[in-house]
């Protein structure tokens, strides 16, 4: 009984990963299409959020906890990237 649940949960995690990849593609589409810089930056934010979740799911599927560290790293970089891009948007305005 428990074995079957475990197998089900792992299988479901793989399915969820595939769904997340579709979501990643969706966010990437928004990033490519734009139309504005603000849209692209928002999409990047979304993209990294999904990437963190995907890292966590990968860790659960493969049972390697290193992937959680990767997720933490991605979260850190995402924050810095968003802050840098936001300040870029704001500075650009002041100059022109």
């Amino acid at each position: 009984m428990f074995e079957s649940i475990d197998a089900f949960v792992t299988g479901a995690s793989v399915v969820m990963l595939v769904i997340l990849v579709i979501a990643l593609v969706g966010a990437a589409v928004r990033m490519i299409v734009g139309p504005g810089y603000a849209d692209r930056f928002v999409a990047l934010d979304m993209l990294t959020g999904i990437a963190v979740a995907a890292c966590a799911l990968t860790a659960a599927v493969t049972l390697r906890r290193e992937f959680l560290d990767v997720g933490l790293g991605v979260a850190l970089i995402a924050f810095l990237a968003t802050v840098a891009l936001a300040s870029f948007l704001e500075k650009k305005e002041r100059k022109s």
Partner: protein
Amino acid sequence: MLALLAFLFKLVGVGFLCVATIGVLRFVDPFQRMHASTKAGTLGAGLVLVGVAIDMGQTDAVIVAGITFLFLLATLPVAGHLLGRASYISGAPLESSEDALEGVLPRCEVPLEARGEAAFERRMESMLGGATDHSGAAAKPDTAHRAAEADAFAKPGYDAVRFAIFGPDAKAIARRAETLAHARSVPLSGIAVIDEDCIARAKVPDPGEVIRSALARTLAETQGVTAESRVPFSLTYEEGDPLALIPACDAQARELLLLPCEGWCDHGADLGLPAGESQPGDKLFALAERHAGATLFVGTAQASGPVAILHDGSDALHSLALWALGSRLWDAKDILLTGRPNAEQTEAIAAFAEENALELTLSDVVPASACAVIMSAPPARQVHEAGEFWQDRIVPGFRADVLVG
């Protein structure tokens, strides 16, 4: 049981992420998209992390997942706020009919991506338009005064040259003033003022003495130049309000005022003013504003390019330009006309150029190599506005003379 709980967490999390993605794809403006990505995205990623932590069960995995979760909770609202603010300021399109932030935050009319090519034109526009804007903000001489000023520009030349002595280095400006005064054989006067306001606001002990000794050093250096002056030279030393003391108020006196491009009556002394406070030098352009007559900001660079006229189409600037060219303030043989002069003004300047054997070019851009720019008012309110030196607003890297009315 725990596995099921973890599964539920992960499922709900992935569901939220999918909903957030659909939101990012389908909402109509960046702000609505942000609403989807920051709220639902954070919740989704957080729930997936919690699910995985329950699933893994090992202490180290739980700790790392917990740290990531907390980090996401702490940073995503901050990042979302910053991004939203920046998008609003940069003018990202807002589809909603009402703008609750109107008047609270400055906002660009055109979003960043729409700027690009037309950026230069708009920059020019704001510079030319900025002139009128500028005069509205500060106390401006009345129209009669303006008319008198225009009269003073009717025939070329000036009857006196005065220059402001701002420490720590005033040699270059003194030399320049002496040359200009000698060219017309008119009297030269130097004005050294100590700003009372600076003394009052300074955060160092005995600021009066600090500034006075800084000025004394400057004066000693300047003396090397003024002692050899080929025209009568007078030096005025005052303590008080520079805005009242430095500019000449009588337009009939036809005085040319020379100012450095930056600096103030604190003479470079360290007054320990906090960086956030308004700096004394911010009032530099008010001097030019109050001066009845032309003000020349003496540039630090020696350029060999043309004299550029940044024409805003007004009569005041037109007469100033003709006056400056007629007075031979610069030796350049080339004139460059840019901005938006009307046909009549263009013709007048072309006729002037022909008479004096000067080369006239019409152009859309002020080259960085221009030896001087003639414009109606400085392109900024402060010497350093938003971290940008004011001359960079005319054209980046430009450091030569600027003449304003």
